[in-house]
């Protein structure tokens, strides 16, 4: 049975990257991971007996991210940040600029749609696995993804990903 400190020591950087991709914002990612791990510490006796405590921690981070009370303010902040003048110069290649544009559009997606894309394309989970993590039906996962692609204007990718 691994201790809380051992698991955190080994997994924290990956959890932080995961939270950053999910949240798209350093401060929110920090809040989400901190709060999730503080709660995990309180229940570590139970979590440590699981087969894969690290996966459970990921789920806790996701749940924390999806928690309703954080959404409005952070989304408003992200939206404003996207609109704010860029202090540094533009990226020097078109490809980088396109990626930034896509990243900005990802940041504007609703949380569940964004979570589905992260779990599918960053975590490489299958639809049933995503459904289990999000505790919803497999069909709902597909609906979320379809809506996300529509919002991103990536219908062609949707067809290819099927």
């Amino acid at each position, binding site marked *: 049975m691994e201790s809380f400190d051992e698991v955190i020591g080994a997994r924290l950087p990956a959890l932080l990257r995961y939270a950053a991709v999910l949240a798209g914002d350093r401060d929110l990612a920090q809040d989400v991971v*901190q709060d999730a791990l503080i709660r995990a510490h309180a229940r570590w006796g139970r979590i440590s007996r699981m087969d894969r405590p690290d996966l459970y921690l990921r789920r806790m981070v996701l749940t924390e991210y999806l928690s309703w009370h954080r959404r409005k303010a952070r989304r408003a902040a992200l939206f404003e940040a996207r609109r704010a003048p860029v202090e540094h110069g533009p990226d020097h290649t078109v490809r980088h600029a396109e990626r930034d544009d896509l990243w900005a559009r990802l940041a504007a997606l609703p949380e569940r749609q964004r979570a589905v894309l*992260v779990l599918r394309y960053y975590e490489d989970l299958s639809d049933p696995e995503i459904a289990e993590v999000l505790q919803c039906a497999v069909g709902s996962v597909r609906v979320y993804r379809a809506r996300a692609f529509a919002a991103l204007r990536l219908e062609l990718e949707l067809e290819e990903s099927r």
Partner: protein
Amino acid sequence: MSTRLNRALAEGERHSPDPTEVLAGIRAGVRRSRRRRRFAVAGSAGAAVLVLAGGGLLVQRLPIPPVGSTPATDGVDGVDGVAAAAAAGPVQPQPCRLGFGWLPTNLATPMWTCGPGDQRVLYPMDGGPYLRVDVDHSGWQPPLSRKGWEPVVVNGRTGRMAVKNTRALVLFPLSSGRWVGLEYGVGQPGGPRTEKLGETAKRIAEGIGETVASTVRVPFAPSYLPRGQRFVSALGGTKSGLTYREGSGRVLDRKPVQGLTEDGIPTDRPTVDYGVGYSIRWGPTGSEPTGKELGERADRDVQGLPTYLVNRGMTVIVDGFHGGQLSVSLNGPERIRPTAPTAPPTGELLQIAEGIRWTG
């Protein structure tokens, strides 16, 4: 095509927080939750004392680096709490990231508060106008619409402004996304109306940026601080000071706490996780111990100098410390703890004061 999405999502990794800061936040959070549980469980003052005594040892079991620790102090983890000196030691000169493009005349000597957790300046009312500017570090995004306030555009970004007879308040975002609170005033609240107060406040706001304007250096350093404290800011001007706190400084509850200025302007602010913190201040008095009774005399003197307790034991004053007065205060535990401690932490404050070293 999905490669493009993979790459875009991977871009998000650059937003990864600093693991050291996160570990510090987790550690502080665990300490707070344990403290809350202790206060909830304790049914009597005696029981609370017992639980507090045991809690210090419990916290030691989590070997996460202390908040704001330096390499020299990381090794104290797991050792009995007596050895803890989390953020103690000299503080480097702190850059003040708050610059002004324009200021009105006749402002008094300012007090600067500069550090990683706080950037503010105060021009006290001393026969002239009054100006207070602070940059938010809690991540708060205030609502743009608020009764008693009007929208205002500062450098192309929308904020809000409220103006009364003697005070003008402006709340606006900088290009970094941080919000600035600005209060400009002429005369005492309730006094006669000052013309163009709002225009002056807006002009000051339009010149504000996060450029390094100056640095603050403090002529003393603590050699002891309670475990878990991290450095927040240094104070410079007519007084010198250092501020430490245990909390993350981030917003705990975005539902604003509402208030009213003396001039009748409605204010709102979020609840921020400050946790238990300490302020150390020193100001010159131009003489050796003043000999005045500054409060209740403490049980023991600090560094051989007359020592007093004020504010119900929440502040310790050492009179005559290097030609001035040294004070150590406890800050804000009531925001975190559900119950106030049964006794003021006088011993802790005296220990901090005893450990202050003059660096000149």
